[in-house]
């Protein structure tokens, strides 16, 4: 079914008001425009307009060599920057036939999960800001700052580090790295109860979130939703379990799932994911050798065999996949990214129509889109 692309006033109908929400609306976390028709307090129509941040990633990447492309993949979902590098790297590693040392895999996994916590903290802070609570924002950004400092010490940048590379990671970790991560986890575990008290357990928040924006299991699957949005609707799909990559086969963790599919369930799933991430990092810290190789043997000129490969990872927002077609030269023939926020954003008409106008903000923040990745 093709939906309407614009919302036109219906002739003769005066009770419907058409509102442009965005593209500079602070609650859209970037540049999203939603044209909304409201009848009183209820939303009758909603059409999202995207593309304000389009940077032509996929075409640029055709003109770059493989090591150069890693830099660009960072810039898709800039909130969880490091995670975006992995699907492209995994795909090229498969084409190259590179062996990755176990230590490099574990270091990658530690960073991957640290960025999941960092991303969920940004979501929690800004999401609660949309709902009118300022305190969680100040707390979450302080905690995230610790992750960013750990990342900067080892990876060389705070948000877009360009740290993973074919065959492992770019450089060995800083001597303080394992100590810092363990310290952060201890610190973060004392902070989580605060977030529960401020957000999830608060009846004020529950009154705002329970039963709002209900997404049924069938609708979520039909629209191609992924990540916490899908898991909050009762589908226990997680790429880390479905097609394990890196060190995930060796690590034990749960996939938090809830069946309600409302805003509260999506918040709950992300909270539990942060807890699971802490457990995963603890296990990885136990397993990772303190010293050893951090990069496998990679030819100096990266020229994969002709062929195509699709690899997916579970980033903070869901299923991020990268399809790489190689013709045997230094540059890929085609790179295609399947991004989770873009698919999740299709749910806007489904979830908005029938909801109250004020709840639209709550629904949008529970979807957690990042527009660098929606528009690419």
């Amino acid at each position, binding site marked *: 079914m093709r939906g309407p692309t614009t919302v036109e006033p219906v002739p003769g109908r005066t009770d419907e008001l058409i509102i442009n929400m965005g593209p500079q609306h602070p609650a859209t976390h970037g540049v999203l425009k939603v044209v909304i028709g409201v009848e009183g307090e209820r939303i009758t129509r909603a059409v999202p307009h995207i593309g304000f941040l389009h940077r032509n990633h996929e075409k640029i990447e055709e003109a*770059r*060599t493989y*090591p*150069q*492309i*890693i*830099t*660009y993949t960072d810039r898709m979902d800039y909130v969880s920057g490091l995670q975006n590098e992995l699907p492209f790297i995994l795909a090229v590693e498969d084409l190259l036939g590179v062996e990755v040392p176990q230590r490099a895999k574990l270091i990658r996994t530690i960073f991957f999960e640290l960025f999941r916590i960092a991303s969920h903290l940004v979501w929690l802070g800004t999401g609660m800001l949309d709902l009118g609570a300022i*305190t969680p924002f100040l*707390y979450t950004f*302080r905690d995230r*700052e610790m992750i960013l400092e750990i990342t*900067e*010490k*080892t*990876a*060389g*940048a705070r948000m*877009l580090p*360009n740290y993973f590379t074919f065959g492992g990671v*770019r*450089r*060995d*970790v*800083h*001597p303080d790295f394992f100590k810092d991560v363990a310290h952060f986890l201890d610190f973060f575990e004392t902070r989580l*109860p*605060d977030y529960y*008290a*401020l957000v999830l*357990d*608060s*009846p*004020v*928040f529950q*009154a705002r979130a329970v039963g709002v924006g209900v997404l049924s299991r069938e609708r979520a699957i039909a629209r191609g939703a992924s990540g916490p949005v899908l898991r909050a609707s009762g589908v226990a799909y997680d790429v880390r379990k479905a097609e394990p990559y890196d060190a995930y086969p060796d690590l034990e963790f749960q996939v938090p799932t809830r069946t309600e599919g409302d805003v509260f369930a999506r918040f709950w799933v992300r909270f539990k994911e942060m807890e699971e991430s802490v457990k995963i990092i603890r296990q990885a810290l136990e397993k990772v050798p*303190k*010293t050893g190789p*951090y990069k496998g043997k990679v030819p100096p000129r990266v020229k994969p065999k002709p062929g195509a490969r699709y690899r997916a990872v579970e980033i903070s927002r869901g299923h991020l996949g990268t399809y790489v077609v190689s013709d045997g030269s230094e540059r890929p023939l085609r790179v295609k990214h399947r991004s989770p926020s873009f698919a999740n954003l299709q749910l806007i008409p489904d979830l908005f129509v029938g909801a109250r106008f004020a709840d639209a903000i709550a629904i949008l923040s529970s979807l957690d889109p990042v527009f660098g990745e929606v528009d690419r």
Partner: protein
Amino acid sequence: MSLFAEVWEAVKAVGAGLGAVNKRISEPAVTEFYPYKKPEIPPVSVQFLALIQNEDGTDRCVACLQCERVCPSQVITIERKRNPEGKGFVLERFDLDFANCMHCANCVEACPVSAIVTVGAFEHAVYDINLLKADKAMLDHIGHEARVWYSPKFGVELRTPEGKIQKAPPEMQPGGLAELLKAEGGEAS
């Protein structure tokens, strides 16, 4: 639920939130007083790039064009000429446009002689975008000012107050853990 019970629930919720905040209110502030107290940036952090010269003032750079080749945004421009005395090339021009630089440090990774490095200097905000177009003199200057820098080949290096260049202790090196653990083990045994 009656209205009174609902109001009471809300009051309790606000109280619980205030309790959680109150628990943390006496913790030390994490705010950085930036212009007055400058943060220490780790040398691996990609902020400014710099060209490092040897202790005797000659260029480390051998004009091999590797950095120009790997740069994704093509901001490095190098012109070179044959070395009149001896073999190899010498630099005639080395321009780096920081305005378009993506700070990916691919050039630093590619450099075979550790000439282009990342330094901890980070205050490069200017009012005129043309001032971000660095030439060789500016990059050399940043390199001279730098006390500590990083390149994958030599690791973290220090410039002593006397102007000597030496390798930094393993506590600052990426992968310095191996050396530290060995030293610990050596003392223990």
